[in-house]
């Protein structure tokens, strides 16, 4: 045990400030190299110019952005459409997420677990498979139209796909699980005895929901909306798979411009706009959440 005579500096290493740098460095380096630099690169590229045939030419011009906000086609057919579809589908997904979220909160044991897994399952299944199943159901002579025709609810097959309506529906479908997760977070903080107390003083189910459960679930609804809205504003896979060129949402246009038309600078400009838009959404919603949180602190 004579090693105690060794110089204190050498052994002093333990357990003071230690190898966190070494532990974090690989991941930070990886992310810097293949995530931060590409993101910066795409911002830079968005100021390049596109010369047909020459791919892209280094430059520093805002023309790609100007084109996006001045060309009436992009404003009306793409940006406005994107905003409209994103807002509608977000709103609808929040409304439709409530029943399953409430159902899960109110059930226990095996049933709860089963419901939870059912709702979360779509998150672990490929988007392509989900949309493929969606197409199978909503095709001209698919399951949905067969049922509707069979029940004489419609006279002729409904056109579910290759239009804004169909894309909106599918976006709602994709968003619901995300919103349910957020709602559950809030709903599970609602003490069942608060609801019971409301029932106890004579409120019926609806009144209890409107006066007790709903207000308490607002933070969950807000953060759920935030996730759904950022997903939907930037949607590109769903319009690509379901709408084709008929529903040129901004994300899809960016993809087309960059990979099909080979106009990378313009595609980059659109995606930078989308990045800014989702950052703005996150920023605004975080502010709202913070305000809600402060308000709740005041109340209690």
């Amino acid at each position, binding site marked *: 045990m004579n090693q105690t005579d060794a110089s204190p500096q050498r052994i002093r290493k333990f357990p003071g400030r230690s190898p966190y740098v070494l*532990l974090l460095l690989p991941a930070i380096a990886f992310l810097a190299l293949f995530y931060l630099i*590409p*993101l910066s690169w795409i911002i830079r590229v968005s100021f390049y110019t596109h010369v047909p045939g020459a791919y892209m030419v280094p430059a520093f011009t805002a023309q790609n952005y100007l084109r996006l906000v001045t060309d009436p086609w992009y404003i009306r057919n793409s940006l406005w459409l994107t905003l409209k579809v994103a807002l509608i589908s977000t709103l609808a997904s929040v409304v439709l997420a409530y029943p399953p979220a409430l159902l899960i909160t109110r059930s226990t044991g095996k049933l709860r677990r089963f419901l939870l897994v059912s709702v*979360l399952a*779509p998150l672990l299944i490929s988007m392509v*498979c989900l949309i493929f199943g969606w197409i199978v*159901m909503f095709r001209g002579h698919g399951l949905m139209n067969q049922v509707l025709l069979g029940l004489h609810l419609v006279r002729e097959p409904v056109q579910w796909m290759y239009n804004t309506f169909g894309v909106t529906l599918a976006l709602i479908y994709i968003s619901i699980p995300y919103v349910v997760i957020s709602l559950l977070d809030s709903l599970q903080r609602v003490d069942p005895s608060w609801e019971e107390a409301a029932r106890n003083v004579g409120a019926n189910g609806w009144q209890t929901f409107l006066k007790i459960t709903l207000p308490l679930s607002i933070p969950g609804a807000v953060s759920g909306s935030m996730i759904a809205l950022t997903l939907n504003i930037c949607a590109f896979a769903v319009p690509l798979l379901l709408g084709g060129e008929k529903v040129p949402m901004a994300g899809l246009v960016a*993809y087309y411009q960059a*990979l099909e038309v080979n106009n990378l600078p313009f595609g980059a400009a659109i*995606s930078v706009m989308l990045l800014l838009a989702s950052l703005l959404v996150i920023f605004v919603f975080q502010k709202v959440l913070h305000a809600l949180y402060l308000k709740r602190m005041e109340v209690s």
Partner: protein
Amino acid sequence: MFVRVTGILIVVGLLLPIGVTVVVAFNSSGFLLPPSGFTLRWFEKAVRNRDFVQGFYVSLAVATVASLIATGLGLLSAFGYVRYSFPGKDWVNLLFLSPLMVPVVVLGLALYSYFVALHLNDTLTALVIGHAITLIPLSFRTITASLYNFDVSMEEAALNVGASRIQTFAWITFPIIKLGILAGFILSFIMSWNNFSISLFLAGSKYVPLPVAIYSYIKFEFDAVAAAVSTILILLSGVAIFVIDRTMGLGAVMGVRKG
């Protein structure tokens, strides 16, 4: 009552497209429903399709390597993050989780143009790296959660009886948190296996992962073969969902608090 009925309807609605796909894949009359008989014909056709077979191997390789990278990096950084306090900790957390917040189109486009510039486009490397970037937040989050649940005195007790740091990790820490790491790995694997958007940007013509192969197929042909391939993807997802739910609980891994 209203909640129960609508809730169940919506849950069924969420599962319906998945169910319909699986039914079609085994239905002898394909898209014609109700099903008329059981068949494996569509699977046979799928297995004879070169694009699908190749896509299967590409997906398998990419998912394996990308989730190994993500789990390794996630494990190291989760340790650094949970066990030490240092300036800028919140920023590190933000950095590791942010790939989830950046829109997929933006990330896809950025990686695409970056790999084009590096002459790495249409390679397995590009796919692996692109996937790993999207997986790091997931593995970081799961492993961080299991480390926060881990009682540090378990490690101190090991040091106290004379074990070195490495021995402590190998014999005490790792065995105790390995389920969390495993769940993180499976989650990463399945997310990569399913990934469509990033793959679409990064896949050229040589290496096409299965989801993109399905997309290319249904663009031109819409038949039950695609349903069969989708079913293969879904089945693997089902296995992953089952295993994750049994080990850590699917809800916990996806960020739902215990009710």
